[in-house]
């Protein structure tokens, strides 16, 4: 009988080998393809086991944190957003169904605890405690930006930068959404008008209109073509490519200097300057301000940052591309498109003596014990314009707010420098109303770009007051 026993045993060993083979097939060979199936709950489940770190504003307001949910023996966490409407585009969301966006996506390694060499004990335990991410965003400035946009009602965006460092104090986009219900109401949110999930501050390019004239003026002074007191003559029209460029409202200014031209946004003068500069020299200045490539704001996912510059359709051209209408480009029309972030960088560079700083949203990352894991040091991107050119521009922009198109941006007892812009898109969709500026003009602490879309009003009327409110909040917060 022992021979039968032996044979039966061999048969069973073969059967078990088959089990081991199939087991390996599912656990090893097919593991990743199983994991990628849409109805596999494990990726989501494993994320829920992580105690993600908090996202905190510069002034200590918690925008996102994880709360322990007692799930029948397994410790799981739920993400809560105490201020879901304050900065949803910056904070972003993290969900298995939707993927992730914003800081939640870009800092998921830190927030999720996947950084550095963790203590062995923590690895054995498997419990991950993520690090806290502190933003440069100040809740008071951000609130002012959100309120300002809400008061206007039209779609728009605000970016506020501290010029000396590049720290972003506020970044708001309207229409907005609430992080509290983005996961549950995702489809209905995407169907709402105005694409609430779009971060207009970094993702939406529109013609910058007359705000672009600060770049034209910078280029002209930097290249020695003009000084603030260089004289020009305006007779109301300047013909380029067979079509006349006219001033806003059909005004005729006569003899004036460059300072006056910026103050009153004289189109013909800047179109002339553009032609005189040519594509190369105007393009070089655009390069210096960061046009033509994605702004190096690495704290958000690259897909959420769009480059500004010259476009043919959706194709970005070189800033110094020849054969384009450089006159209309010089007044911020034709094929120049810019995001509010880019225009805020322009304002910040001029405010900072011409030195462009890398914009950033995260100042530091701390672990649960409060130990610093990452401290951001402000980086210089380069001298966009010489400091004397910046000083000239600063003085000219001060005039814009004091007596020109930007008077609505004036703040009591403070010197505000700025430039308005109103790009006429079409009769039906209304204007792109812009304001870029900084304050105080002699010692800038805050630079801002405001864009209001689809408005019948001009930048000086609708965008400048929002900028004023935001700058006021920023200066009060800095005090």
């Amino acid at each position: 009988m022992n021979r039968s026993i032996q044979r039966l045993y061999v048969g069973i060993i073969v059967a078990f080998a088959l089990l081991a083979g199939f087991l390996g097939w599912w656990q090893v060979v097919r593991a990743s393809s199983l994991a990628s199936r849409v109805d596999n709950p494990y990726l989501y489940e494993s994320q829920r086991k992580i105690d993600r770190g908090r996202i905190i504003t510069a002034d200590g307001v918690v925008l996102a944190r994880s709360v322990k949910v007692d799930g029948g023996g397994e410790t799981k966490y739920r993400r809560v957003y105490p201020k879901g409407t304050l900065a949803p585009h910056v904070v972003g969301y993290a969900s298995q169904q939707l993927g992730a966006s914003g800081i939640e996506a870009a800092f998921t390694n830190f927030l999720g605890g996947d950084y550095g060499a963790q203590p062995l004990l923590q690895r054995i335990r498997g419990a991950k405690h993520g690090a806290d991410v502190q933003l440069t965003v100040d809740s008071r400035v951000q609130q002012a930006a959100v309120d300002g946009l809400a008061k206007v009602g039209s779609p728009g965006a605000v970016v506020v930068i501290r010029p000396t460092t590049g720290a972003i104090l506020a970044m708001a986009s309207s229409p907005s959404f609430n992080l509290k219900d983005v996961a549950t109401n995702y489809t209905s949110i995407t169907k709402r008008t105005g694409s609430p999930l779009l971060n207009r501050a970094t993702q939406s390019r529109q013609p910058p209109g007359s705000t672009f004239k600060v770049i034209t003026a910078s280029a002209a002074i930097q290249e020695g073509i003009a000084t603030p007191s260089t004289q020009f003559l305006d007779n109301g029209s300047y013909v380029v490519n067979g079509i006349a460029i006219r001033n806003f409202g059909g005004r005729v200014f006569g003899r004036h200097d460059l300072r006056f031209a910026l103050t009153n946004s004289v189109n013909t003068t800047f179109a002339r300057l553009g032609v005189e500069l040519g594509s190369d020299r105007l393009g070089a200045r655009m390069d210096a301000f960061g046009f033509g490539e994605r702004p190096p704001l690495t704290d958000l996912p690259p897909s959420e940052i769009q480059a500004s510059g010259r476009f043919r359709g959706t194709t970005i051209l070189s800033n110094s591309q020849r054969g384009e209408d450089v006159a209309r480009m010089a007044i911020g029309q034709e094929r120049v498109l810019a995001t509010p972030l880019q225009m805020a960088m322009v304002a910040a560079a001029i405010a900072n003596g011409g030195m462009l700083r890398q914009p950033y949203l995260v100042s530091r990352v701390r672990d649960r014990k409060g130990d610093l894991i990452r401290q951001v040091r402000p980086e210089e991107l380069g001298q966009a314009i010489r400091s004397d050119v910046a000083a000239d521009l600063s003085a000219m922009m001060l005039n814009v707010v004091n007596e020109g198109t930007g008077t609505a941006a004036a703040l009591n007892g403070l010197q505000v420098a700025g430039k308005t812009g109103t790009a006429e898109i079409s009769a039906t969709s209304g204007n792109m109303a812009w304001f870029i500026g900084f304050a105080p003009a002699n010692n800038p602490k805050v630079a801002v770009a405001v864009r209001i879309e689809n408005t019948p009003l001009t930048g000086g009327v609708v965008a400048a007051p929002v900028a004023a409110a935001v700058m006021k909040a920023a200066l009060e917060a800095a005090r």
Partner: protein
Amino acid sequence: MTGRRTREAWLLAMPVLLGLIGSGTVATAAAGRYTSANLVGVGSVVGVFLAMHIALRIRAPHADPYLLPIVATLIAVGLVELSRLSPSSAADQVLWVAVGGAVVIGFLVFLPDHHVLQNYTYLTGLAAVGLLIATMVFGTYVNGAKLWIPIGFGQSIQPGEFAKVLLVIFLAAYLRDRREVLAIPTTRMLGVPVPALRHLAPGLMFVGVALLTIVVLNDFGTALLFLGILLAMLYLATGRSAYPAIGFGLFAIGAVIVFMSVGRIQERVSAWLSPFDDTRGLGYQTVQSLYALGDGGVLGPGFGNGSLLRENGTTIIPELRTDFIFSAVGNELGYVGALAVLITFLLLIHRGFVIAAQANDGFSKLLAAGLTTIFAMQTFVIIGGIVRVVPLTGVTLPFMSYGGSSIVTNFAAVALLLIISERTRRPLVGAGS
């Protein structure tokens, strides 16, 4: 021969360590900070095994020293996993392990010689059939299958579990008597030489009963198990591979007929062959279990660190504590851990067959090999169902699945194996004294 028992004691230290570390890991994962093991739970189980060990020292000092440590290892892994899924179930299970231990000690005390069982050949056979009939009559449907008889106090028993062991005892005694006549073919069937029909009749009857079990109890797993045990033991007794071949052939024909006539079986087969076609319905359990195995990967996150529970405490995979406990282990310990469990079962089977091969008489050999076959079949059928080697059927994984009937029955089988090995190895009376 105290050497054997000393070796057993040393080997038992390993599952004790496994239980302590496992329990500590589970507690730590649940609390989120270092927490010590559930000393009361681990201590209780250690006490049970210590009692069995002492009983063996007194009553069966020559018995196989590896069985108990192997069983303890499986119990440790099963209990740790169970305690992480449902602490109250684990507490129940500890109680059942204690009952199982008592059964082992009872066997050692009251059944010093298993040959006595030969005197009750037909009684055990009738008892096995009676338990099945009782299930058909008094059983209640749970998840569509009629397996359970309520015995009051909210408890139920699964008579099919006990019937398996009784069936093996019956077959061992029955076949020992008839192995000669069964081994000599006298007629031909379909060109294959077979013994006279009257000797085959009980075998054919069992094939019929097995198929009937599928239809009446809707319990494909138990039917497959019974048939497998019968054919394996027929083969062991006669050494003729024609028996399993013919038996499985008849079963296959019967299965095809049942497949074509019973809708539920068709659903099962399609859930086996293409579970991903209906991941929310018929394929749900299989697919979720495969996801769990895939999530475990090669090493797994460790005891207590997988994601197996919903927030309300229910398991994502249905029947995770019972039939699918192996999926939970595979998820948390990975391929390495699952393979280790598989190898531990193979070690158990190895010891069982060694005991069978060394036994002195046909009855002992058949009994030991038959009991071992139960472990092998059951492990193969449920793990094979989980990894899709065979259609999924609800049977318990020996010593690991949650459930009193299963635990107690398996301990009884181990008790018989221990007694057989003791009888085999005990020096002849008077040799030393």
